[in-house]
């Protein structure tokens, strides 16, 4: 991650530049150095530095403050830290007024500098997260977000067109993150109800009583706090579509109420005595196997058949791996535009990694993963390293099967596995293998394993 926050050190003393850079590199940062303001500026034009350490006094050409101002002209977001000797603290304070984020007096305590860098980067991370959340708040899901070349998905999309103008209830099944709401919106938007409301309700998010008043509304005095009449989602969706997500999680009482709405298209508000009539198309979704829930007695059979008039089963992302490059490119384009970042695409290596991953959270997880990579990416292209944390979490399990290889190769693999099991501890690995450590490194050398 730290590699994504490049740092520039500007000082006319080479030893100062190089020793500072070496120290920061040990901490995992990508560091460049420049001996003067001019070269610093050229580097800043090419790289979006998160932090620039600039020495206040540099003989000839630009001094520290001029260099800082020029860097800010090309990289207004870069945090400049002015480095100063004790005698020049007043000027350093002047530099702060001109836009420096901090100043440090050399030589400074190692703790001071590592805390300063950590503090600035924490702020930068918060700023970028803030930007994403703002974008997320305003982002609208569009049905052309369904992108596929998978035959099953294409059939599903064709089906959404065919059924869009009917009023029949639709049940969408699929793991979380497969795009159930997107498909529901696609059905709604393609049909005659497109101009009317599409109201989505997550049934698992609310308790039984809350969900009841949420769906059906309530009359004044129905319960403590019910100060006036309120319309429920069914009324709000009148003429349009109501999308009941996670329908498998509703209580038996609500199952009965919902069955009545489905049969009669009429219901009572909570605490009300007058029936309300609505024209609403119901699309329900679940990640559960409802048929099994019915068998177990947890879901009403009659409701299940009412809901399951048209069933759409969305495949998991791992069942449509051919869509991963297509979706990834789409997300890169959309998210980088939204975040105002200039990312041209995903490298072949990174794509290979994405295709190999199993995506338990499906398309939503892919979208989040790409968003995270874009936020932290500092190059014009998403590379393997931008997804390295994904690779680590997917794990590389080592199952011992005797492969069709030479005995030497078997021995080499056994050594690697022993070292991995002991997390790199050579002493423990050689003990486990029953050889001494010098034999172990002799063998490593024999197999031309380098270090």
């Amino acid at each position, binding site marked *: 991650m730290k590699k994504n926050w490049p740092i520039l050190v500007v000082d006319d003393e080479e030893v100062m530049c190089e*020793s500072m850079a070496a120290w920061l590199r040990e901490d995992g940062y990508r560091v460049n150095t420049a001996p003067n303001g001019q070269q610093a500026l050229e580097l800043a034009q090419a790289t979006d530095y998160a932090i620039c350490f600039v020495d206040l006094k540099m003989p000839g050409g630009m001094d520290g403050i001029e260099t800082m101002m020029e860097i800010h002209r090309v990289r207004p977001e870069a945090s400049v830290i002015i480095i100063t000797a004790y005698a020049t603290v007043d000027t350093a304070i002047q530099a702060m007024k001109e836009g420096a984020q901090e100043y440090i007096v050399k030589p400074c305590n190692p703790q001071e500098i590592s805390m300063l860098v950590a503090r600035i980067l924490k702020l930068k991370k918060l700023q970028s997260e803030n930007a994403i959340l703002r974008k997320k708040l305003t982002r609208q899901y569009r049905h052309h977000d369904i992108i596929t070349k998978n035959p099953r998905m294409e059939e599903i999309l064709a089906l959404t067109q065919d059924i869009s103008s009917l009023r029949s209830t639709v049940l969408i099944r699929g793991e979380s993150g497969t795009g159930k709401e997107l498909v529901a919106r696609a059905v709604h938007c393609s049909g005659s109800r497109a101009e009317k409301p599409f109201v989505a309700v997550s049934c698992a998010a609310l308790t039984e009583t809350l969900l009841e008043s949420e769906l059906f509304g309530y009359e004044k005095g129905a319960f403590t706090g019910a100060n006036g009449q309120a319309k429920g989602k069914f009324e709000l969706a009148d003429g349009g579509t109501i999308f009941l997500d996670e329908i498998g999680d509703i209580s038996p009482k609500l199952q009965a109420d919902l069955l009545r709405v489905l049969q009669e298209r009429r219901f009572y508000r909570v605490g009300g005595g007058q029936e309300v009539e609505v024209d609403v198309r119901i699309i329900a979704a679940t990640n559960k196997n409802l048929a099994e829930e019915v068998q177990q007695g947890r879901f009403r059979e009659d409701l299940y058949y009412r809901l399951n008039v048209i069933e759409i089963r969305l495949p998991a992302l791992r069942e449509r791996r051919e869509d991963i490059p297509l979706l990834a490119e789409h997300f890169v384009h959309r998210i980088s535009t939204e975040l105002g970042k200039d990312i041209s695409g995903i490298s072949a290596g990174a794509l290979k990694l994405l295709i190999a991953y199993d995506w338990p959270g499906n398309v939503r997880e892919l979208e989040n993963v790409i968003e995270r990579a874009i936020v932290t990416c500092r190059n014009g292209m998403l590379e393997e390293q931008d997804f390295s944390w994904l690779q680590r979490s997917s794990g590389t399990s080592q199952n011992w099967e005797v492969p069709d290889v030479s005995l030497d190769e078997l021995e080499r693999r056994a050594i690697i596995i022993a070292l991995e099991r002991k997390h790199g501890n050579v002493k423990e690995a050689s003990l486990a293998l029953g050889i001494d450590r010098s034999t172990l490194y002799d063998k*490593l050398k024999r197999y031309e394993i380098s270090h």
Partner: protein
Amino acid sequence: MNVLYLVAIGNVPEKAWEWIENASAEWFPLPIRRLAPLPIPAEAYDEKRRQYRSVEIMKMLAQHAPRDATRVLGVTDVDLAIPMLSFLFGQAQLNGPIAVVSLFRLHQEFYGLPEDQSLLRERTVKEALHELGHTFGLTHCYQSKCAMSLATHIELVDAKTEKYCPECGMQLVERFTSLDGGV
């Protein structure tokens, strides 16, 4: 080209060698040898700061590295610094052959406390593993108990253990077992 050399710079207690040698043998599948001690280079001393320039000492180590050396770890008992920082426990070339560790601030006496050999051993081992870890490409680790976590004062050195965390250890395994990786 696969020997890990240990070298004293100036006066270093004999015991420190054993400590570092044993700890290195536990983690690095390499032959470990000692070089004859080297004097502290005169140009390394900074009169104004009364400290020794770490960069000069590393330059000297590079000049004295034997042909079959893959890594050279220098150990000294003098106080090290770089222009930017007031002191260093040690320094290394990330992915490079040279590293240096200073025992100066690892002694309890430096903090006005009575000598403690067992604590000095632990600190010496932690810092030696830390700097050698850098030479094999490891950067600072977020786990405060890992030998690779960043210690900017002695309490943080004491918070570490004398071993790499599983994640850093796995990176070493990758390093030592990959067929196409370079030294």
